[in-house]
């Protein structure tokens, strides 16, 4: 009969990965991959932020000539592409990767190698997109990339090929990641964590993942059509040859609007994680919030046409989409009132993560309210493509996603590093960001109402826009200073922060039941859950220790985790989990060959890359689990 110490040592041996370059390339540990996602996405965030500062500097005054139109157009296009595709979604994926298994009491994601593959493809496609700067052909027709402007006739350079191929490449990563999240959340929850006890962050990741799987094919189809046009003379979008430029817009927004919720849902999942902990009270109307999450993901597919109200579509169809766009505010309203009610019926602790949550709610409400206005067809038609819409979606996306991400940095990074961030610097960073954000984006409402169109590299004086633009520019630098403070805080805390302990906030979910940072195997014993707030169930957590001492559900016979049933999370089977593998990286590299050579029109080499990919996938599937 093994002792507790022996069991833990055995788990350590089974799950440990040696340090060094080999492991760095081959690891499938969800925590390492999660951290990689977080760091890579943060670097892209810095790049997008610098692009934004350049744009704001150019727009600080009328008739400024710091940046010419060519540079300006590339920068605003890449700012959008980076924020949407390379920062927010992967950043939330990073938190998802690291925390979903911890939140549900599992030892890894359902498909660890697929997880590593997702990251490598994300990194490759990000580098692919950014390498366009080296050749002076960065995508320059906006993140929305409307045809015919993006057709070969009007943008003959490779700019758009970088865009279309880069996003198609990235879609592989997102799709694989989404499937992984769904299976993980459905099958790897701790016993007893029935679907109605699942953390709200997992509900959000689940909703987002389903949305991604259904939304991305539309974007990929649009990009494939576009490349077929650009490279092989097809004419999906050319009216003279029977095509239609509006087809691009439909496909793009069938993806693009759900994508708003793909970005937003995990972010509000973070908020729903933080609110009860810092309100010292369980979530009010948990079931409503969970349902609102799924309802949002679902209705999100029925509103895309409100991006096209000015294109001259038939009025009856616009009225339908107007109604749908009004309805979708209700699930958001439910969530906002659920958070407020939880805080109101609790006793809020105003630490930095909660400050960012409060900042999020105020800012997001403004963005939500202007969002309702865009359902009003004539008003939409008046201010769409003006700075008013720029203000609106930054309130929704920066307010709705970046504030929660920053809250998560202060809330969850101590779990990752084992060190708390500095509270005073944290509060200072919050105020810089909150003030800077509002100073940047609130005046844009006004310049938009005053008739300033978006995506202009310059504007005349005498229009009354100058002062609002100057305020925006001052705000953007304040905001950047706040972000810098967050980065300094994270880097500083890694070495010098106060030790976090396993549960610095008094959290209600399972990630706080293990050490900070968690061991390779996450939990020495698979926890058994009896409520929606498992870490507040002190008796249950003591029972875990007892079971560890007895050797129940320790799963130390191999590299294993437990699978449970979909709804009730009854114990189902023990899964043998894969460990270090070269195949995810090799498949990603082979795919890179395909996309790079498609870009430069070497189709034979691209086809060879395709064969290499197939070979690497075959290698992946022939790999036997390592039996220790």
């Amino acid at each position, binding site marked *: 009969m093994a002792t507790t110490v022996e069991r833990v040592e055995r788990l350590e041996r089974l799950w440990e990965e040696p340090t060094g370059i080999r492991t760095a390339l081959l690891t499938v540990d969800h925590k390492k991959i999660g951290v990689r996602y977080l760091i890579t996405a943060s670097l892209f965030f810095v790049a997008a932020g610098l692009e934004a500062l350049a744009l704001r500097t150019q727009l600080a005054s009328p008739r400024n000539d710091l940046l010419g139109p060519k540079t300006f157009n590339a920068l605003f296009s890449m700012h959008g592409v980076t924020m949407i595709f390379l920062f927010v979604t992967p950043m939330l994926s990073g938190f998802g990767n690291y925390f979903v298994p911890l939140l549900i009491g599992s030892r890894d994601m359902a498909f660890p190698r697929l997880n590593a593959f997702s990251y490598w493809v994300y990194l490759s496609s990000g580098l692919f997109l950014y390498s366009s700067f080296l050749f002076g052909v960065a995508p320059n027709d906006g993140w929305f990339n409307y045809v*015919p402007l993006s057709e070969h006739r009007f943008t003959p350079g490779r700019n758009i090929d970088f865009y279309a191929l880069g996003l198609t490449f990235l879609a592989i990563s997102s799709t694989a990641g989404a499937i992984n999240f769904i299976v993980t959340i459905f099958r790897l929850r701790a016993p007893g964590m029935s679907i109605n006890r699942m953390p709200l962050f997992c509900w959000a990741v689940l909703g987002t993942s389903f949305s991604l799987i259904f939304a991305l094919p539309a974007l990929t189809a649009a990009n494939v059509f576009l490349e077929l046009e650009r490279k092989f003379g097809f004419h999906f979008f050319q009216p003279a040859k029977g095509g239609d430029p509006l087809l691009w817009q439909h496909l793009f927004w069938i993806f693009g609007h759900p994508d708003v919720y793909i970005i937003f849902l995990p972010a509000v999942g973070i908020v729903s994680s933080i609110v009860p902990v810092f309100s010292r009270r369980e979530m009010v109307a948990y079931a409503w919030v969970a349902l609102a999450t799924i309802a949002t993901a679902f209705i999100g597919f029925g509103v895309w046409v409100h991006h096209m109200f000015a294109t001259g579509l038939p009025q009856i169809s616009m009225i339908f989409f107007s109604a749908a766009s009004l309805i979708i505010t209700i699930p958001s309203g439910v969530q906002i009132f659920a958070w407020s009610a939880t805080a109101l*019926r609790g006793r809020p602790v105003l630490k930095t993560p909660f400050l960012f949550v409060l900042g999020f709610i105020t800012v997001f409400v403004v963005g939500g309210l202007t969002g309702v*206005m865009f359902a009003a*067809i004539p008003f939409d038609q008046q201010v769409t493509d003006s700075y008013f819409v720029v203000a609106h979606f930054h309130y929704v996306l920066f307010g709705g996603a970046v504030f929660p991400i920053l809250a998560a940095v202060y809330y969850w990074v101590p779990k990752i590093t084992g060190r708390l961030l500095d509270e005073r610097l944290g509060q200072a960073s919050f105020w810089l960001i909150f003030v800077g954000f509002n100073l940047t984006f609130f005046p844009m409402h006004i310049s938009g109402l005053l*008739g300033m169109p978006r995506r202009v590299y310059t504007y005349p004086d005498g229009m009354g826009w100058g002062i609002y633009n100057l305020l925006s520019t001052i705000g953007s630098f304040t905001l950047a200073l706040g972000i810098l403070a967050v980065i300094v805080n994270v880097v500083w805390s890694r070495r010098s922060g106060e030790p976090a302990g396993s549960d610095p906030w008094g959290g209600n979910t399972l990630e706080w039941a293990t050490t900070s940072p968690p061991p390779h195997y996450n939990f020495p014993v698979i926890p058994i859950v009896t409520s929606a707030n498992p870490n507040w169930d002190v008796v249950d957590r003591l029972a875990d220790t007892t079971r560890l001492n007895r050797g129940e559900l320790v799963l130390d016979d191999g590299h294993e985790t437990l699978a449970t049933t979909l709804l009730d999370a009854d114990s189902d089977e023990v899964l043998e989990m894969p460990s270090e593998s070269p195949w995810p990286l090799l498949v990603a590299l082979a795919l890179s060959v395909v996309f790079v050579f498609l870009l430069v029109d070497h189709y034979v080499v691209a086809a060879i890359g395709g064969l290499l990919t197939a070979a690497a996938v075959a290698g992946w599937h022939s790999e036997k689990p390592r039996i220790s």
Partner: protein
Amino acid sequence: MGSLLGGSVVRVFRAAPLEMIEAWTNGQPEAPASNFGTPLAGSASSVRSLSLVRPAAPRLALVAGGALTLAGCGSSQSTLEPASPASKDIAHLWWVMFIGATIVFAVVVVLLLAAILRRGSRADAPVREESRFGRTLVFTGGALVPLVVLVGLFVLILQTLPSTSQARGRAALTVDVVGRQWFWDVRYEGRKLVTANEIHIPVGAAVQARVTSEDVIHSLWIPALNRKIDTIPGKTSAITLRASHAGTFRGQCAEFCGLQHANMALLVVAEPPAAFRAWLARETRPVAAPASALARRGQAVFLGSGCSGCHTVSGTGANGKVGPDLTHFGSRRTIGAVTETNTRDLLGGWILDPQHVKPGNRMPGFRLSGPELRGLTAYLESLK
């Protein structure tokens, strides 16, 4: 404020009867020159004084919405200075939604402040019980009240549709606007009248602006007169421009269309019927042969140096289609789609180096001698 929130929108202007417009548009050829003379300082500043009328409701709301008190003053492209029934309806809709949004925002902020006042500490044992109050709050505040408000808003939206929806059927006066990279071709249906970047309309008449594009997607947006409408290749759409008072209203391309999206503006000049008739007569008349020796020399330069390969001047050999039609260029207020004021000096600078003024536009610079340039600008200015 009650009538503002609930009342239906009052239509100030009814459509002008067809005969009236016919009278305007078929008026006498001779008419006094209208007050076109004022040059455009910075392309916009002199325009603003013309749009004076502001509805009462916005004024009230301007006071109510402190942060926006500056918003209304002084720009000719503002959505908040509507000069047509359509734009007034939209501005009305905005102010109603703005007031509603302010109330909702205030409620949420009050809730959060009330929560903050109940501050606790990390050491507090978590409360674990359902809150009946909380659930009621979520149900009423998050679902029930929003549903009622949204239904009300939906009704208001439907009420605003008639004035802003696409123009249908035949109008007395139809203007065809074609978006081009990066200027606007303007034609008047049924007349030999081609111009660019300037639309003249008679005050009070419902003018149909029928739009399409010959290259990429643009969007015609004249905020004071109506919502925007995209110009899409292969598709024709139409909106109504009905100015409720005389004035010059700036508009601009609102859909990103490439390098010079920023400098693709236009002016809509709404004039009293007599002045409009005079303009129409002048613009449809063939251009007279250049009168001065200088202008004659300029015409030779125009026809000999390549200008005519891209530009049309009706009645001469110049029939290029790449750039804007210049037949009555001398009467236009701006150069390069409202990039610069149309003065002889700025015109000369434009001809020598248009890429400096509007980088990426299709016009190459011309190396002309001093006399050639003087002649060319004199000729172009003579094209009244």
